[in-house]
């Protein structure tokens, strides 16, 4: 592990860098530069100032970068725990103009519903191989079914059936909120293919549900809970061979989707035997009004009510949260309450932020804990 004084950027500073030295420095490194726990972000270009914008909770969301004297090179060194994954952009300020840009020295990017981000992988982080397509693995099929809802009209739902699907078998059901995002940004179809192939989860049917008005539907909306538990599942049971026991039924959500999942379980206790809640926006207040947007008031009311009146709403709950997201406090606070209410709870923290790849990377441990596959029955 390098001491801070031995970092590549420090050596450059000590050398009294010339233009050639900066050229050589850029040529010699991959960016951001990872040196043990230290990660140095670098930007080269004319600017009045440059800031690193990220989602590392507990530190300023935009950190000013330092200019290498006499050059147009800017840098900032952060200590990141092993296996961290950080999404970021640079804010380049030129006079009165400020612009968020991707890191030109880093080709690694990720796209989420809010745009494209540069990605920094800390020491030891590797994209899990089970999130990538494997030509040896049978692919499940996605078809679209249309579900009629009193509150939401007719809604298209993508339904995953596993490779080797047979109509005369019965399968567990996984309902995935923000379904299109899970498919597009969390490789959920590939993850299901791989985990089923490895026998880490059983072959299952997954329904990917996408909201039309996310905040309105997900912020403790009784109509949405009814849609999930009555209209959606009833419809799926008429079209697909789905097991009927609550234990064979799971609900997945991330962020506000996790709130929607928990509120549905709260309104219909025992209906979903398994919950997977990633980075839930479980905002609450101990006293006084919330400082969050008023749109989330129903969420605050719900979480406050839940905290005051604990109920066993499911059998097993998997909760995960990134340590770099502000919601870590809310999630850490929720876990003991879920346990106290008599549910089996598994809680995982990841050195990551509030993003889809974090939620993707937690799917293996979450799903295989909620729906253990037959792996331990197979001996090769």
């Amino acid at each position, binding site marked *: 592990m390098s001491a801070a004084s031995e970092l590549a950027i420090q050596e450059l500073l000590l050398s009294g860098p010339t233009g050639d030295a900066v050229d050589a420095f850029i040529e010699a490194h991959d960016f951001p530069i990872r040196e043990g726990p230290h990660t140095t972000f670098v930007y080269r270009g004319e600017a009045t100032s440059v800031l690193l914008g990220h989602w590392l909770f507990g530190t300023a969301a935009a950190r000013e970068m330092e200019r290498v004297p006499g050059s147009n090179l800017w840098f900032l060194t952060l200590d990141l725990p092993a296996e961290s994954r950080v999404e970021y952009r640079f804010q380049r300020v030129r006079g009165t103009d400020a612009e968020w840009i991707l890191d030109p020295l880093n080709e690694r990017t990720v796209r989420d519903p809010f745009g494209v981000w540069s990605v920094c992988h800390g020491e030891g982080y590797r994209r899990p191989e089970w999130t990538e397509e494997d030509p040896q693995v049978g692919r499940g099929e996605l078809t679209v079914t249309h579900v009629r809802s009193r509150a939401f009209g007719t809604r298209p739902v993508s339904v995953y059936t596993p490779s080797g699907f047979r109509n005369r078998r019965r399968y567990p059901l996984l309902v995935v909120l923000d379904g299109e995002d899970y498919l597009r940004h969390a490789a959920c179809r590939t993850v299901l293919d791989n985990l089923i192939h490895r026998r880490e989860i059983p072959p299952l049917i997954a329904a990917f549900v996408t909201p039309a008005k996310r905040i309105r539907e997900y912020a403790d909306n009784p109509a949405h809970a009814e849609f999930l538990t009555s209209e959606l599942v009833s419809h799926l049971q008429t079209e697909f061979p789905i097991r009927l026991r609550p234990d064979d039924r799971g609900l997945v959500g991330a962020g506000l989707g996790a709130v929607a999942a928990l509120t549905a379980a709260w309104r219909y206790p025992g209906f979903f035997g398994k919950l997977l809640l990633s980075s839930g926006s479980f905002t609450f207040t101990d006293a006084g009004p919330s400082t969050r947007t008023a749109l989330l008031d129903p969420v605050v009311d719900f979480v406050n009510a839940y905290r005051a009146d604990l109920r066993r709403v499911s059998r097993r709950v998997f909760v995960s949260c990134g340590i770099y997201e502000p919601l870590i406090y809310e999630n850490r606070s929720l876990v003991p309450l879920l346990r106290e209410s008599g549910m089996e709870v598994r809680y995982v923290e990841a050195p990551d932020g509030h993003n889809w790849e974090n939620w993707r990377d937690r799917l293996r441990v979450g799903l*295989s804990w909620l729906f253990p596959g037959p792996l331990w*029955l197979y*001996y090769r």
Partner: protein
Amino acid sequence: MAVHVPRAVVLGPQPGRIDLGPGLEALELPPGPVAAITVGWRETEPVLKEVEQELGQCGREAVPLHIGERVGRVFERDAPLAEAHRALQEGLLAEEQLYGARLRRAVETAREVVRLSVAERYRDPYAEQAWQAILAADRFHVERHAELWQEFREAVGLAERPAIREQREELEGLLAGAAAVVLTGGHVAVIRNRLLLLGLADALAPLPLLAWSAGAMVLTPRVVLFHDRLPGGAARPEILGDGLSLVPGIALFPDARIRLDLGDRQSLAELSGRVNPDRAVLLDPGDLIHWDGRAWSSPHGVRLLSDDGEVETVPSFVPGAPGAEPRTEGAAT
């Protein structure tokens, strides 16, 4: 009284290409075809073809028993039996859940008692009680599992049902002409279930057997499910139920280096104690152990778990007899 096969070879896991040569050689078989049971991987999978090719290369004709297809035909022909069997599976699943709940508490208690910082003279009686609770949970589960099967057999008159008799008679004919039987790995509960359903233990008993992993586990007195490295967390070892007891004195732990935490001496000691009086045998790719009708042996030694959770290697051992002098490998093997 269990009837044991005259000779058997148990191979380590076969992760790549199946290699039957050393096993067939060790069995010293007379000429003749070899029957193949591949139901653990479902017979549509390529393992059957691989077994046929491998036997062919060893100069043996393969006789696939197609156990899975036969059971499918039984259920097609005998719907009431299929329904009763489905109900049996539900009962067995419920039994597993109840056993799992009881076992979880028993294991947690045993661990907690051992962790307490109290003098041994106070702790030991409780540790013994906690240990007996684990053994009692295992014992009761095995009994209940066997009772559910027996109730099913009696309720449907399993042995006398024409669909079963027809298949069994055909299978007995095929086995009578075989020099040996090969059982592959795969889904251990499926293999065991299908062999029990067709009542094949007696027909297999006179024949030399060559088996590995799941196929070998069902031949032993007791089948133990285990995996310390599941992505969702270590699974507590559970007894699936009695095996066919066609080979004596062992409980098998295939892929031990991958599936067991060999550094966790307490868990390994528990595992060893839970299969007592049988010996816990660890197997990994390339291993081969041989049963000659009297003793288990291996040219490279048989790896066993000792009472205190160490891995020891012995050249041979006789089931039920005091073991040969062990060579201790160390628990971190």
